[in-house]
């Protein structure tokens, strides 16, 4: 069952690095993270890789496998050809710390910029009533495991460091959408803020984020596009635009 697998693993740090060739045993049913662990235990004791749950639930082992952003724990070795070399490299959108580990602190900074959930003022514990169908829209986005593959693949920031300052990225567009669709959230201007402060307008809906999402969240169709439509509605509808000016509306309902 076991076979010899050829791998190329990027090793290095912020200063320099290169792909290194290794041959490692791979057993039936194994995923890429398993063989990386075998390399670590037998050939490269100090090979740096992040991982936690090994079941696609924590989103730690994000890397690029043959150039595609993927979770190493959910990528079967058998999904590549018998003679194919598997190349693993760190996420390209973030600065390398060491080997396959990158500095993803950008995402945590962005998380702190998103206005938090605002509950209704007088709702007592246990008194909330919500329909299942209403919570499901936000629940889709709350499936997010924060693997940041969508952030990594998004071309707005993938090769454009300069855009990072003004662009929160798909992970945080679904966070905003989730709060915006939350049946009880009381903050009214989320979409407008997404547009004005978090760079929603920079997204040109190429759906790359949706394609790489291991949770199959329909980031573009269910979060980004609906928010863009509503923002456009208000911004370019002269009557509604006037309404926002005259009545000093807090935002877009």
């Amino acid at each position: 069952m076991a076979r010899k697998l050829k791998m190329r693993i990027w090793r290095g740090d912020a200063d320099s690095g290169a792909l290194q060739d290794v041959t490692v045993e791979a057993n039936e049913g194994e995923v890429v993270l398993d063989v990386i662990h075998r390399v670590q235990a037998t050939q490269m004791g100090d090979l740096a890789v992040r991982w936690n749950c090994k079941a696609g639930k924590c989103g730690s082992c994000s890397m690029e496998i043959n150039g595609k952003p993927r979770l190493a724990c959910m990528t079967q070795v058998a999904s590549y050809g018998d003679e194919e070399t598997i190349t693993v490299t760190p996420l390209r959108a973030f600065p390398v710390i060491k080997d396959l580990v990158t500095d993803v602190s950008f995402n945590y900074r962005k998380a702190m910029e998103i206005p938090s959930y605002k509950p209704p003022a007088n709702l007592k514990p246990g008194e909330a009533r919500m329909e299942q169908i209403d919570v499901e829209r936000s629940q889709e986005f709350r499936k997010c495991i924060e693997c940041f593959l969508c952030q990594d693949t998004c071309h707005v920031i993938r090769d454009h460091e300069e855009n990072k300052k003004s662009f929160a990225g798909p992970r945080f567009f679904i966070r905003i959408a989730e709060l915006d669709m939350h049946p009880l959230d009381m903050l009214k201007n989320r979409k407008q803020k997404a547009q004005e402060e978090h760079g929603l307008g920079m997204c040109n809906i190429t759906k790359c984020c949706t394609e790489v999402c291991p949770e199959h969240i329909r980031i573009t169709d269910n979060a980004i596009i609906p928010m863009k439509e509503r923002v456009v509605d208000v911004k370019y509808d002269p009557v509604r635009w006037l309404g926002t000016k005259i009545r000093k509306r807090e935002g877009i309902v």
Partner: protein
Amino acid sequence: MTNLERHSYDVVVIGAGGAGLRAAVEAREAGLRVAIICKSLFGKAHTVMAEGGAAASMGNVNENDNWQVHFRDTMRGGKFLNHYRMAELHAKESPDRVWELEQWGALFDRTAEGKISQRNFGGHEYPRLAHVGDRTGLELIRTMQQRIVALQQKDGKTYQSMESHLKVFAELTVTEILKEDGKIAGVYGYWRETGAEVLFEAPAVIIATGGVGKTFKITSNSWEGTGDGHALALKAGANLVDMEFLQFHPTGMVWPPSVRGILVTESVRGEGGVLTNNKGERFMFKYIPDVFKDKYADNEEEADRWYTDQDNNRRPPELLPRDEVARAINTEVKAGRGTEHGGVFLDVSKRISAEIIKKRLPSMWHQFYELAGVDITKEAMEVGPTCHYVMGGVEVEPDTAAAVGVPGLFAAGEVAGGMHGSNRLGGNSLSDLLVFGRRAGMGAAEYVKSAKPVAVSDATIKAAGDRIEAPFSRSGGENSYSLHAELQEITHNLVGIIRTGSELKEAIEKIAEIRKRSANVSVAGGRKFNPGFHLAFDLDNMLLVAESTAKSAISREESRGGHTRDDFPQLDNKWRQINHIASFNGTEVSVRKQTLPEIPKELFDLFDVHELEKYMTPEEITKGGAR
């Protein structure tokens, strides 16, 4: 030491899983300056893996539920070895803790009336688990992670800095809890990213480091479950209570090898999943213990009817407490009635439709489809026991979560002992970490009010630093990966689901042997994000845990919950009065017996006395609880 990175806080929380985050929220809301330290990135803690739900007797689905019923179920599940006060606080407070999460933005699944939905789970008399599909743990951790951010944003407005009063230090390992003059003074550790050392000075430390699963070969735990808090507490002079009790979750994946041990949620059985052996026999009917005979159906017809009529039928035996199901599966496999890969079959496809399976068990479907090539809407899963949870842990005062014997030290969540007795019910873990995480935060806040800051001496700092440098100063020594693998073989073979005296004795000797060799671990490469170096410290912790477990296990000459002795197969009511207390003198772990606190009369009276007779001695029954 001039270059040493130093921080000063009111309280340091070690661990950013559910208990740690809940403790941090409480401590910050009480006005404290709080540091949260975690080994992984923020939001990746093992809590994300919790699938089933959080047990809380809200009575949304069955209005007969209340804290008394939940308390009774918890005590039964733990075979009455639980600390009654912890079980009482837990049952009383968990509904408020769940509702509180909702106020912070959590979105649980709903009932038709729009309330939080609750599902059935093993050992719980009524549907009780608040859930979000089968990813409840993720919802919990994300909600609290976002609550932390909300508090930081509030601080940002008040203090012009979001991290001035509440800061997360991610990917940082704590190697030591520091004490001066018998009191907590702070913690010492290193950044995983750079290997650089860090000192935190703080009068209070909350340990919320979770479990010990990585001590074992087959486990549902991630790499983080290395018993760090258990070992740190022992070394700081705290006690570990009842470390012999480990929960082997009955249903872990068994195939393919790379996913062996990964959890298959109990919800699969809660939703109607049936266990069969290779003869197609629904074997659980053979394994209903006497103490549970009046609550579990002894025939398929009644068990099947229960799913639609719970008032007039007994529960299916697949929903017995986890220890019972794990032992049953173990027995079936050993008797040659297992599957090709050494498990049994768990099938949910025959009872509920594909559509409902995908809706109620989405991540299970995903996990089996993508990792094992099995479509659980059409075929059976292969499952077997996996080391899942440690009931034993730091001995604490129930109301404050203060570690017994160490002023300034607190512990909550899986790392704390007592709450679950000899066996934890599914769903009681998420509620445990909410209830006692909050109490630890409150306990620390109360302690800090009167505690004076304790300066950490240079000698203490130097000793902590030397220990981190040690593995680099040796060369050609032992490899931490191989020692870890050897330890896992020993625990798996000799301290596993079924134990005997002679094997435990052998295990204790072998663990001591590895302890000796581990003093000679050397590490290749530098300090920068070096997993071999990280494992050297984890290994040290796991060895202390394994020693505590083996020594407690050899002393307990009975079988109860998560501790089964082949040579003492019976439940012994005299042993129910005994807790094991493990402590560490700097060289080895010793275990002594301690009398369990007596259950007060008002809690005693919640039970039918005939049920208590199964667990208590005649003298205890006559006395009828403490007055």
